[in-house]
């Protein structure tokens, strides 16, 4: 029976970003109570910095998910981006802008190969991009012989280590730009509309004259490009390209987007929600540290959030079906 209460829960479920907002507030409050240092300026800036790195990838991934596809190779592709940029700049001595372009091009190539597998060979995206993740991970080991590449120039370091007004790390600015541009593209442009249509019903979109394969290819390559950019930022921040940069972030970023309100099934996507989701993960990892919980628990918590996000996604799907 439809009683009053069921009705309000239903309408609440329609606020896509809710899944991220509630735990965000809850955890922040708890962390502050346990240790007031959580709200210190230094700590908040640290949270923002962590968030900015995942937002850079979370926003393009939101588009890919909204178009009905996913990519589990982004984590390793991130590491590859840093490695290629560092090798080009340090080992080959190429000028910094060229090194960056080469790294982005390689990231896009990985995205292109993903789209080749998923769109043209019709392989299941989940497994195909997971396989790509392994390939890229192995390639990273091979080309670096499992050692970090250091010795990058001061200019390279400045990309991520600069602080605005001496306080805010510059990646935060990059992330804000990416998020704002992403939001505008998703909600206002023809391209954004097509992404949502393709994710909602690819065949109907195809028959309406939208080139579905091309659109997916563009999305995969954009995600690849941003993985490389994110890798370059990590490399700059740590003054060296490390194999572990970005490792394991694929699922975290995917979870951020889903808990923020983007559906795994395609057809809906909210950039704002993804930013909140990224913020949530940054807050959790920080809160665990601040509250003195062993970092061993981090992955357990992350996994639980992903499960919760999937449940919310499922419930949301159910509630909109009978709206």
């Amino acid at each position, binding site marked *: 029976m439809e009683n009053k209460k069921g009705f309000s829960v239903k309408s609440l479920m329609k606020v896509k970003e809710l899944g991220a907002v509630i735990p965000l507030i809850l955890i922040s409050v708890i962390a502050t109570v346990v240790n007031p240092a959580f709200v210190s300026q230094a700590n908040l800036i640290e949270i923002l910095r962590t968030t900015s790195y995942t937002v850079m990838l979370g926003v393009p991934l939101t588009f890919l998910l909204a178009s009905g596809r996913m990519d589990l190779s982004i984590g390793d592709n991130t590491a590859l981006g840093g490695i290629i940029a560092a090798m080009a700049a340090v080992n080959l001595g190429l000028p910094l802008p060229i090194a960056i372009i080469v790294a982005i091009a390689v990231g896009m190539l990985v995205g292109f190969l993903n789209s080749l597998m998923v769109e043209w060979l019709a392989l299941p995206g989940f497994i195909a991009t997971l396989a790509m993740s392994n390939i890229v991970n192995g390639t990273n080991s091979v080309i670096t012989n499992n050692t970090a590449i250091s010795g990058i120039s001061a200019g390279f370091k400045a990309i991520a280590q600069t602080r605005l007004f001496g306080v805010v790390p510059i990646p935060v600015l990059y992330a804000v730009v990416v998020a704002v541009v992403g939001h505008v593209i998703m909600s206002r442009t023809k391209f954004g509309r097509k992404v*949502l249509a393709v994710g909602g019903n690819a065949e109907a979109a195809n028959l309406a004259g939208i*080139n579905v394969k091309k659109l997916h290819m563009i999305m995969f390559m954009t995600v690849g490009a941003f993985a490389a950019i994110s890798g370059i930022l990590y490399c700059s921040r740590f003054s060296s390209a490390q194999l572990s940069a970005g490792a394991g972030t694929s699922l975290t970023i995917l979870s951020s987007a889903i808990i923020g309100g983007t559906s795994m099934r395609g057809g*809906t996507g909210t950039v704002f929600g993804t930013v909140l989701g990224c913020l949530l993960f940054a807050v959790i990892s920080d809160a665990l540290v601040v509250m003195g919980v062993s970092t061993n628990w981090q992955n357990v918590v992350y996994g639980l959030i992903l499960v919760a996000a999937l449940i919310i996604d499922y419930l949301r799907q159910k509630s909109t079906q009978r709206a």
Partner: protein
Amino acid sequence: MAEVVLEMKNITKEFPGVKALNNVNIDLRKGEVLGIVGENGAGKSTLMKVLSGTYSHDQYTGEIWVDGKKQQFNSVADGRNAGICMIYQEVSVMFDSSVAENVFVNNLPGKGLFVDYPKLYGDTQVLLDRVGLAVNPKTIVRKLNAGQLQLMSIVRGIAANPHILVFDEPSTALTDSEVDLLMDFLDRLRKDGVSCIYISHKLEEIYRICDRVTVIRDGQTIATRDAEDWNEADLIENMIGRKVENMYTKTPREFGEPVLEVEDLVVPHPTIKNRNIVDYTSFKLRKGEILGIGGLVGAGRSETLEAIFGKTTEGVSKKVKIHGKEVTINTPQDAIKAGIGFATEERKLTGFVDTMDIMYNISLASLDDIPGKLFVDTKAETEEVVKHFERLRVKAPSLHQMVVNLSGGNQQKVILAKWLMKNPDILFIDEPTKGIDVGTKSEFYKILDELANEGVSIVMVSSDMPELISVSDRVIVMCEGKITGELDKGELTQANVMRLAITK
């Protein structure tokens, strides 16, 4: 009068803000077929959900009596145990299992962990013979065609030996000969003393098989009479609650030059090797003409449209001329650029985007025509969308209603609006009024007539015989992938179409 096996008394079911059923009363007698007719949204499906136990007894008011006993169902299983079986329009099956496994999935014969396959196949064969469905029990269900699939779900329904059977639009995917099978089967059920409820939009079938007919409108039972006491006009009038002077609108018009010429279209059969589902087909479409394509299910009609439009390309060969000039169409984008629009048969699968609202669906094909290079000029978009939304009289509270929540007729209007906004020269429309109620059908015929008068050339595939011969200016009939004949205005009769449809 035969004994009453089922009585539903004063059934009222409310949804938030809507009374879906308002004091509905029906009774079903032993060994009869009771027809239930009504427009989409009249409450037929809700009523059947009440009867089947999909809605438990505390979700509605009123009483259900089966064989003189008052029943309160909590679940579909309770309904089934009381001997009521529902056969739904949408078939849910396990595609990679055999027919036999599908039929007896709830009740596989055998001891312990093991299935007694010989008995399973034997029992299934008996049931298949009863319905008259000529397939092997071991056949994998994926290989069945739409009609066989629908008949199989009937076989599955009778496996539990119910004494009350409810058929909800059981013939949508059936060919005429399969409909005959179904009618014979219903007749035998009736003689065996089984009582059936038959819900259908197809009045022809209602007249053919039903003993009595109940009309439901706006959630209320309007009247129940013996089938022979209903004349068709009366029945329709009661269903829609007003008089219909003319179901079909047809104004005389002149046809121009050929706008579309198709030559030697070949489409390979999707499942059978070395066979073509469309086999060297050629036809012409003139400006302002409504060309109907008739034929049985599987004759290659939909496949013809899909191949011309670039929806299917694998193994397809064709020569297409538009306005006398040869064009290459490899994708739907090419077809749209050439001025073709295509409203497909499977509305939910290929017609609209279910995560989007009415407005976004209507503008979907015209996004690139809306002013603005990168951004959508929503003011211009809304203006244009509203124009078509109003012209087609889509019944919805606002443009921001989700299309999924609309009735079939209104979904089809949204799809048509999408193509009208694109302003095509040529419109393909496959089964334009499938599953749509009588009142809305009539609106569609008027719109198609208007469009043709405006110079749009239309190719319409239809299995609805009266519709095909009344709406079309000219009909080509297909059989096994070939065009077996062409009928001009004067020769358009159901008998002529049928004769050509079975000409080999």
